C-alpha cells in the first residue's frame, strides 16, 4: 500500500509551545528597534542642519569679496529674459493687427505702468534676493503683461470675425 506523504502536511499541525519569557523578550527588542529609529532620525536632522549652515556660511563668505551672482538671481534673470522676449513678440503681433492708434496708445501706457512697477520690485529683489514673495511678484508682473497682450489680441480677432460676418451679410 502506498500513500502520498504530502497529505500529512496539509492538515493543521500541532503548534509548538513558546519559551516562557518570549513576550517580554520581544517587547525589549521592539523598544530597542524604536530607539535606534529615533536616533537615526535625530542624526539625519543634525546632519541636514549642519549642511544648510555650512552652505549658507560658505556662500556668505565667498559672496562678499567677489559679488558672485547667486543661483537665485541667475534663475530669475533667465525667467525674465524668456518672458520679455515673449512679451515683445506679442506686442508686435498686437500692433500688426490693431490699426487703432488710440488703442495702441492705451496699451502702451498700461504696459509702461507695469514696467515701472517691475523696476521697483527689481530693486527690492536686488536687496533681498532670497525672498520668495518678491520673486513671485516679479513673475506675476511679467505674466500680467503677457496676458493683457494675449487678451486684447483675442478680442481684436473676435471683433474682426464679427465685422467680416457683418460685411458678408450686408
Amino acid at each position, binding site marked *: 500500500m502506498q500513500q502520498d*506523504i504530502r497529505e500529512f502536511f496539509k492538515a493543521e499541525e500541532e*503548534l509548538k*509551545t513558546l519559551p516562557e519569557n518570549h513576550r517580554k523578550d520581544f517587547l525589549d527588542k521592539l523598544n530597542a528597534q524604536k530607539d535606534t529609529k529615533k536616533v537615526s532620525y535625530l542624526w539625519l536632522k543634525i546632519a541636514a542642519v549642519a549642511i544648510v549652515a555650512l552652505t549658507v556660511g560658505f556662500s556668505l563668505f565667498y559672496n562678499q569679496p567677489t559679488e558672485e551672482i547667486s543661483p537665485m538671481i541667475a534663475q530669475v534673470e533667465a525667467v525674465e529674459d524668456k518672458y520679455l522676449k515673449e512679451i515683445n513678440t506679442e506686442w508686435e503681433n498686437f500692433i500688426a493687427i490693431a490699426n487703432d492708434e488710440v488703442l495702441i496708445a492705451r496699451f502702451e501706457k498700461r504696459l509702461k505702468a507695469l514696467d515701472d512697477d517691475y523696476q521697483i520690485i527689481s530693486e527690492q529683489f536686488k536687496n533681498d534676493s532670497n525672498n520668495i514673495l518678491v520673486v513671485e511678484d516679479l513673475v506675476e508682473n511679467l505674466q500680467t503683461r503677457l496676458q493683457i497682450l494675449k487678451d486684447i489680441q483675442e478680442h481684436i480677432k473676435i471683433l474682426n470675425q464679427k465685422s467680416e460676418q457683418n460685411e458678408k451679410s450686408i
Partner: protein
Amino acid sequence: MHHQHHSLIERCKTGNQVAQMQIYDLYAKAMFTVACRYLSNEEDAKDAMQDGFLKAFLNIESYRPEAAFGAWLKRIIINQCLDVLRKNQLQFNDIEVSELKIVDEDDWNFDSNLTKNDILKAVEQLIENHKVVVKLYLIEGYDHSEISEILDIPVKTSRTHLRRGKLKLQELLKPKYNAARY
C-alpha cells in the same frame, strides 16, 4: 474578525506598539512552529521568529492586503531562518544540475505504514540544502517558482534538490519498509 485584523495592521503602520504586540500574540505560536522546522535549537528559532516580526513591522508598508497577512509573515520568518542557516554556511550554488533519472516529480507515494513522524525524522537526516528545499515544498507547500524566489536559486536547481532529496528519503525509509515485511 477580518475587519478587526485589518485595523490592527493599519495601526501597526503608524508604529502603534500595542497593535504590534497584539499581532505578535496572534501569530507568535504559529510562526515559532514554522521557525522550529528550520532551526533545531528552540532558542535560535525563537530569536529568528522575533527578528522576523521586527522586520515585518519595519516593512509593514510593503504588505498588500490582497495577500493573507499570515502568509506574508511566514515568508519573512522563513527568510529570517534561512539567513541564520546561511550564516552557518548553507550554500546552494555549486551544484551540478543534471537529470539523474527520469522521475515523476509529482509522485510522492511512500509506504502507507509510514507515519508523519517517520517522514519528519527522515527529512532531518537529509543534507542541509536538500532538507531546506524538501521542507519548503513538502511542509510549507511552496512551488518551485516560490522556492527559487525564497532561496534565490534557479528553478532548475530547486527541482534538482527536491529530486535528490526525495530519492534520499525513499532510500532512508526503505529499511523500515523491509523490516515491516519480516
